[in-house]
Each structure stands twice: as C-alpha cells, then as structure tokens.
C-alpha cells in the first residue's frame, strides 16, 4: 500500500490553476524531492496535503484512508507532519515546550486528569522521545532557551523536531535548508537520513539542484501546477521538459 496517493488533485485560485490534475504516489521510506520554478505550486501542494487548503477537485489518500476533507489537526494526528517556508514556531515557548506541544495528542490524557495527575508511564515515554528528537537535531543543550532566541538554522531544526514529535509517517519539509551554509546543510541531510532509516517518508521542497540530484531517491517536477516529470535523479537529468521549465524553451 502506498503511503500517499493523489488522484487528479486540482486547486484553482480564481482563474489561476495552482494545481492541475496531479497524480502521484509515495511509497517506502524514501526521500522525495519536489522541485519546480517559483509559483509552480509546491507550497500549495503541501497546503492541500495537510488540509490547510481544500482542493477544488480530486482526492488525497493517506495509508489507504481518504483524507481530502479532513481538518489540518486531524491530518497531523493521522501522521502527516510538516514544516513551513517561513519558520512558524511558537515563539514565546522554550525549545522543549515547542516539541512537547506537538506530542500533546499522544499523551495519556483526559480532561481533569491532565490538569491534576499528569505523569506516569506514557509521559515518561514521551519524554524519552523528546530527548531523542532534541538530541538528533542538536538542540538538547538549548532545550530551555526561548525558541525566538535561537539562530536561524537552529529554528529550522526545531521545526523539524516539532514535526517529528507527532510520530508521523510522512514528513513534508518546505525548503529545510534555506539560509543555511554548507556545513549546516550537510548536517541537516545526515539528520534527515537518520529519520528515514526510522521508517519515515520525507518529501522536501528544495531549490539547490545539486543537492536534490545527489540526495533524493525520487523527484517530482512541477510547473504551472502540473506534474511535468518524475523519476530518479539520473532519469531526470536529461529530461527535455525539465530543462525547458528551468532554462526556458529553445526557439526552433
């Protein structure tokens, strides 16, 4: 069974077709790259997958379940987590509070019990998970800092840690390495690799072509809301449509 399956997914904004009959599926613990020129519909696609925008037509199936009309928080709980193009942390909270907020729905809670008798086995397990994630993202030493005070790269990593705190099956990263230097980028990729080894599917929007070609197992190319090509990096390297989309068409 595929993790994610899109059928004829379309979204129009007025006269603009932001997504035009997209069909694609995502399968087994791989890293997928989503590329395309500015305005191709990459972020719109993420917003539709996570329920923030409702599609005009078509359907989204996740682990065999139709999630097209589900609310964002329901989709998040089902296992699709995301980060945002412009970092959207809970600014006034500490690093560890940011992550633990995303664990809330997994916590063994119910009404008054949460307020007066929080704790126990389930809570200990979540704390272990929190420690693992902060450690993986290199933020353990900064866990008590207010998230606003982190550096840019750290904030991006915290967003990923927060997304992973929901224990997702599919992780959508919107330009995770934007604004990072080479060292930071390499470190982040190593961390994404580890997440994948834990059985997570990762889809990421990325502008650095060299990186996408090197690191992704499978690439989707969007242009003007249409999926114009997909395949492994080597298959796409010489694909005429892709070259046209990026470099412009040659006049005959």
């Amino acid at each position, binding site marked *: 069974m595929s993790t994610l399956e899109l059928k004829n997914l379309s979204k129009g904004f007025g006269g603009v077709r932001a997504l035009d009959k997209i069909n694609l599926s995502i399968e087994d613990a791989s890293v997928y790259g989503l590329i395309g020129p500015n305005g191709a519909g990459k972020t719109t696609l993420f917003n539709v997958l996570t329920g923030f925008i409702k599609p005009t037509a078509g359907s989204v199936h996740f682990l065999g379940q139709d999630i097209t009309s589900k609310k964002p*928080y329901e989709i998040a709980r089902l296992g699709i987590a995301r980060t945002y193009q412009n970092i959207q*942390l809970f600014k006034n909270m500490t690093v560890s509070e940011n992550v633990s*907020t995303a664990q*809330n729905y997994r916590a063994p809670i119910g009404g008054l019990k949460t307020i007066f008798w929080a704790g126990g086995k389930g809570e200990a397990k979540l704390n272990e998970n929190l420690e693992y994630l902060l450690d993986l993202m290199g933020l353990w030493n900064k866990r008590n800092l*207010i998230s606003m005070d982190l550096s840019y790269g750290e904030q991006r990593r915290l967003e990923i840690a927060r997304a992973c705190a929901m224990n997702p099956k599919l992780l959508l990263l919107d330009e995770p390495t934007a604004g990072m230097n080479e060292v930071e980028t390499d470190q982040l990729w190593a961390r994404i690799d580890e997440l994948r080894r834990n059985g997570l599917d990762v889809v990421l929007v990325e502008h650095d072509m060299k990186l996408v070609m090197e690191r992704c197992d499978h690439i989707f190319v969007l242009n003007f809301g249409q999926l114009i090509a997909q395949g492994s990096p080597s298959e796409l390297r010489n694909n005429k449509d892709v070259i046209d989309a990026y470099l412009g068409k040659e006049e005959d």
Partner: protein
Amino acid sequence: MSIYMEGILMQMGINILMAYSAFIILATGQLSLGNAGFMAIGAFCSGYLTVRLGIPLPIALILSALLSSLVGVALGIPVLRIRGFFLVLGTLGFGETVRAFFINFEPTGGAYGMRGLFGTTFEMVLLTVVAVTIGLWRIEQSRIGRAFDAVAADEDAAQGAGVNVRAVKVMAFGIGAFIAGLAGGLSAHHLLYVEPGHFSFLVSAMAVLFVILGGMQTFWGAMLGAVIFSLLPEMLRFMEDWRLSVYGAALIILMILRPNGLLSRVFLRNIAMKFQF
C-alpha cells in the same frame, strides 16, 4: 479586620476572579469584551436560586457558574469562527445582549433587579480565589496550558502540530465564563442586591485592563493587576476629587514603561533561577 478593610479585600477578590476570566480567554489569543455578560448570568441565576428557591449560596454559586459556562460554550462555538476585531465586537454585543435580556426578564425583577441577597463572606471569596488560582496554576503547568500557548502564538502552526484549535478556544471560553459566573454570584451576594446596570461594558473592559496591566503571559500577572488596581483607588483617596485622574495617568505611564505588563514569564523565570542555588 475592620469592615472597611474586609469590604475592600472582598471586592479585590472578585476583581481577581474577573481578571482571571479575561486572562484565560486572552491566553488563547482571543479578546472578550463580554465577560460582564457571564458575570450577569452568574449573578442573576444565583440570586434567583437563593432568594426565590432558598438554595444555599455555595450550591447556587456552582450551579450558576455552570450555567454561565454552558452559555460560554454555546456562544463560543459559533462566535469563535471569527477572529480579531470582529470577535471583540461579537463578544461586546453578547455582553450588552445579556444586560438587555435581564432588563426585560421579569422572573429576576426586570430593570429593578432583585433585593434580599446576602451571604458572601470574606472566607468564601478567599476560598474561591485560592481554588481558582490552583486550577489555573495546574492548567498553566499542564499540556493543556501548552496547547493554549500554541494557539495564542500561531493558530496554523498549532493545527499543524495536532492541536484542535477550535476545541481549545471553546474550552477557554467555557472556563472564562465559569470563573466570571462565580465572580458575578459572589459580587451580587456581597452587594446585597443585583440589577442589570451592574454589568455594563465597563466591567468587561476593567477585567481586560487588569490583565493587560498586570501581564497577560501568566495568571500571576492577572492577579497582580487586579490587586494593584483594586487598591490604588483606595490609596489615592487622600487626593479626593483628583484621584481618578491620577489613576488614569498611572495607567498610561505604566503602559509606556512596561508594555508587556508588570509580570512576564521571562521575569518569573529569572526570579525562579535566582532562588535555585
């Protein structure tokens, strides 16, 4: 304790409860200017229960706070679809609607209200304030508190992190209405009568003011704001007719000097750290 002092402290306790009711809603990033409406429901309902039906005050208080909470939830479900200015106007409209309702509602005396309410003691106010404070403290420490913070910080990111934003907002409204209901019931039985004129828009605005001045990041700020601005008019009494002008000026100066309110979380955290070693 003199009767004068006791009276001031009881009014202060009621103000603290009102500040709490505004705070818990502000804690999710919503602003309600209709809490006087919830207070009115608590006051008239408890008054009706004690005077007309002879139910003991403590039970009447809890029942009427529950009714107020129920109205809060029923109001919250449609009203919390709207955001920002429109929500503020919506809640303002609610407060005035409740007041107008009780002006016309004969079973609770219409515009004249009801007489013969009594029974609020200093201990009762103190106990209520302590109980609600403990409740808020536990909420702030719990995962629910973090969900509140998340909704206040960024609704979209909160949704994306699996937080049911609407449920959190409605819950905050329900809790705020419950606390305001308690405040209304205590206040009515402290003043010995209740009439719709008690629950004007100004009461709601004062509740919000306490929180903004005291600091809206933690319930301690709400409490401090209510304490200081309940005592200030008394302390300024020597200025006689000028005291309200000075009171107003003090508000403005404070807003300029401490725009985040008197107490912030960073401030509390720093104090906590200082005492750790």
